[in-house]
């Protein structure tokens, strides 16, 4: 199975191979029913060190995180703002005073201060940074990073979805519904639809009936679509009955570690992301909104910094303690940064959209940690030296995760579309 998924076949071919294999019983899904599906998950108890793919947690700061007030401060300059810098645990690297926990994780991470991406409207920029393509171009709907990771690193026999999004995100575009994210609206309530609405006994009876109907239909008409339908349902039932599904249930987490994250929705989202990565989900996105600080920038960024500081630091700590940090890339980013200048339109000063120069942070994933990539000028307004484009960034992420970003995926009509479009150059300094 694994060889097939890692070969250079097209997505559709892989899917057909999978169907053929499962029809032949290669997954242990015989006519005898559903329980065998469980036995097929040989990989579920594999220790972390032997895991075969990397994972990625994308912490999406929706609205545009002000780089000058978080990761790239310019204290003492005219539009430097109200915040002071503090030293991180890497000598010479300083970030906002309102991110003190993260300052102590600098040795695990990298700051990229030369992002420059050219899309200044929220939706277009979100789309561009998630997919690497501009919305509507070429008449295609492009897959988001999570769907790409799902298609490239996800395992067909893995009982959980390979792309989970805590909050809204973008979908799989031409890669098809199999790589759509499973969306969790409220991490403390778990996944919608993950819990049967009837008793376990009744649910099992229903599954039994369904399986009889599926088998009878297939005896009458051996058609690939019916086979695929049956396989999808079998995988879904396997998911519901799997141990991994408990990863979604935060009430199973010890009280102390829940408290270590804090009780905000974002904090619980980070905890859920950790639990999902622990069981092998390759891509989890956690969204925190509110960063569109046209007004009242400083008070809001102070509060938002407080919201993210502890949970992200705790996430990094937990991943490190579990031996997962080197195989898990954590990214903190937005669709763009905010203006180096301060506007005074509103009652409280604000900053506006700014894609020309901004910052993001990454931890783990085996990158060469403890460094800053790139720099902006004294005002945080332009990039000094070579900028990092959206394509460069996505290529870098792919390379960290072990995905060939030059690979072409075929659209349903056979148009080959590169995972990251031509012109991308991964950031060399990030690799050790």
């Amino acid at each position: 199975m694994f060889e097939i998924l890692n070969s250079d076949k097209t997505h559709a071919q892989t899917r057909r191979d999978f169907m053929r294999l499962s029809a032949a019983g290669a997954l242990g899904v015989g006519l005898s029913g559903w329980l065998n599906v469980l036995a097929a998950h040989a990989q579920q108890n594999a220790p972390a060190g032997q895991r075969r793919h990397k994972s990625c947690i994308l912490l999406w700061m929706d609205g545009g995180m002000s780089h000058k007030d978080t990761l790239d401060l310019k204290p003492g300059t005219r539009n430097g703002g109200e915040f002071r810098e503090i030293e991180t645990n890497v000598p010479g690297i300083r970030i906002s005073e309102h991110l003190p926990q993260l300052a102590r994780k600098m040795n695990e991470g990298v700051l990229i201060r030369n992002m420059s991406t050219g899309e200044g409207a929220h939706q277009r920029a979100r789309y561009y940074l998630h997919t690497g393509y501009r919305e509507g171009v070429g008449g295609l709907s492009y897959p988001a990073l999570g769907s790409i990771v799902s298609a490239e690193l996800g395992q067909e026999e893995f009982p959980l979805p390979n792309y989970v999004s805590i909050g809204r995100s973008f979908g799989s575009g031409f890669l098809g519904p199999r790589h759509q994210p499973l969306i969790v609206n409220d991490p403390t309530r778990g996944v919608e639809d993950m819990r049967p609405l009837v008793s376990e006994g009744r649910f099992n009876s229903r599954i039994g009936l369904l399986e009889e109907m599926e088998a009878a239909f297939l005896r009458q008409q051996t058609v690939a679509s019916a086979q695929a339908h049956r396989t999808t349902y079998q995988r879904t039932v396997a998911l519901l009955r799997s141990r991994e599904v408990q990863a979604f249930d935060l009430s199973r987490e010890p009280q102390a570690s829940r408290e270590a994250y804090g009780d905000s929705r974002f904090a619980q989202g980070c905890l859920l992301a950790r639990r999902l990565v622990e069981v092998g989900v390759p891509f989890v996105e956690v969204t925190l909104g509110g960063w569109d600080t046209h007004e009242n920038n400083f008070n809001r960024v102070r509060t938002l910094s407080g919201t993210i500081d502890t949970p992200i630091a705790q996430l990094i700590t937990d991943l490190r303690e579990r031996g997962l940090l080197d195989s898990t890339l954590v990214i903190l980013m937005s669709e763009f940064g905010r203006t180096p200048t301060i506007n005074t339109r509103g009652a409280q000063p604000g900053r506006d959209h700014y894609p020309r120069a901004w910052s993001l942070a990454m931890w783990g994933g085996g990158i060469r940690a403890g460094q800053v990539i790139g720099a902006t000028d004294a005002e945080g307004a332009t990039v000094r030296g070579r900028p990092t484009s959206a394509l460069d960034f996505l290529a870098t992420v792919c390379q960290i995760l072990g995905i060939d970003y030059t690979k072409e995926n075929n659209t349903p009509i056979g148009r080959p579309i590169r995972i990251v479009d031509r012109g991308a150059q991964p950031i060399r300094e990030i690799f050790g």
Partner: protein
Amino acid sequence: MTLHHRKLLASVLTGALLTCFVTLAVAGEAPTAKAKKGKFGKVAKAVDPAPAPAKSTGEVKPPLQVPAQALSERELARLIDQHIDQRLAAAKIPASPRSDDVEFLRRIYLDLAGVIPPVEVVKAMLDSTDPNRRHKLIDDILNSDRYAFHMADLWSTRLFQRINDNRAVPKQPLQDWLKESFARNDSWHQIVTTLLTATGGTDDPNAGATIYTAANFGLDKLTNTTTRLFMGVRLECAQCHNHPFTNYKQTDYWHMAAFFSKVRLQGNPAANAKNATPLTVTESGKVGRGKAPPMPEGAKALAPKFLNGPAPTIAPEASLREVLAKWLTTKDNPFFARATVNRVWGQMFGRGLVNPVDDMHDDNPPTHPELLDALAGHFAAANFDLKYLYRAIALSETYQRTSKTLAGNEKDDTLYSHMAVKVMTPEQLFDSLNAVLGSPRAIDRKLPGLAAGKGVGIDGRTLFVNFFAVDENADVTEYQQGIPQALKLMNGARTGKLPTLAGFNPSWTPSQVIEHIYLTALSRRPTAQEMSRLLQYVSRDSDRTSAYGDILWAVINSSEFTLVR
């Protein structure tokens, strides 16, 4: 020049698209030595110094042969069968027999009405002995509201793809206008002409057709959508840098795009809900007021010229879109009738005679070229009457074949020896679930949104469709859904607890309930074996209502429900 178009040029320089771009129409930046030595230098070495000229580019396509008088629908159906049977005989592939009535009934309903048949229709069909019952059924469906609704549903999705750039453009007026047009059975050439040439405000009553231009506003978008939907050509590849699979030149692209250069839009199609104002589409000979269609920088402004056709003489004051529409919708236009016939065929059979349906070019020939031309000719002769075309196809034995295979034809998927099994579209699934569960309400209003766009009012059906959406060009015979979609049907609020059957009568006996579940959801009666198994299931449960719910749950989650046989 935008980044995208710089890249486009760069990839042109690398030669990745040699067959696609023979002539560079990008102004200002010729492929210079400097560019070749740059970032892409390494790839540029691979460039064939003397690319072969494209085969058919620029050639004038011969006009379609249009018979003086169209065959009757029955005659055209027979002609379809002759062509199909000839090829099967030559390939020595046996044809599967005719479908039985229930298989045919459910298929034709889903194909033409977009929903499973109502239970009364199923019962009437099962009880009918009228030898003409299939023909009558086809007529009934084509004359129903559901046909017009389904056609409007199909076409509004194709004509209007919701993206951020058109978020302030309302979709409903387009849908309403299409529905009325299909209900009146307006000629397809009339519908397309109106779509292409409409002017006015998007808030005018009966202004649905202007939505097409407003929703696709942009020289490239209008060109791409128009050529793809009405000509069956993916001309966008001559603008894009990914796949060199046609012989169209970039100049062909901008010659066609020129027909949209005089159209203007007042208002902002990407406005936020709070400051959105009605949009107005205008086109006049003089430079109009309002916003010109966004034109990618670097594209050369060329004179209007028809694809594979002549450069028309155009009066200075003329509407260019009218000139285009007039050429396109002429009976013997080499693209229009073929593209339409092929798309309709694809809707009915799960694949086009040219497949994908909108990718008609020399290197992707039809499986049955003479049949395609004959169908196109008669469709044009019948004044582009869509119902005529649907009726003729539906009456053919080819369409009425069972989807069950025979020994010797299992592997055939291009010669129509048996009907292809299609997977319900999200729209068909939603409407069919409603038909079974008996409520027009959303299946589950709390469906998670996939960046659907803030400020856009989204109803339950749209949410459901977005959640189950497959790519527009995906193979409709392939089941594409994943775990989240299965979870939604298994455990979603409406289906997961105690699904209720439309028209349920508490005084029914268990066998009557089971029969109704089957008639309603699967459009057939249960077999004796199924009946006895399910009666046993009900009798073993002290809670009969829940047992019925279990059966209904299993049926709507089954392959048989979601497949169109």
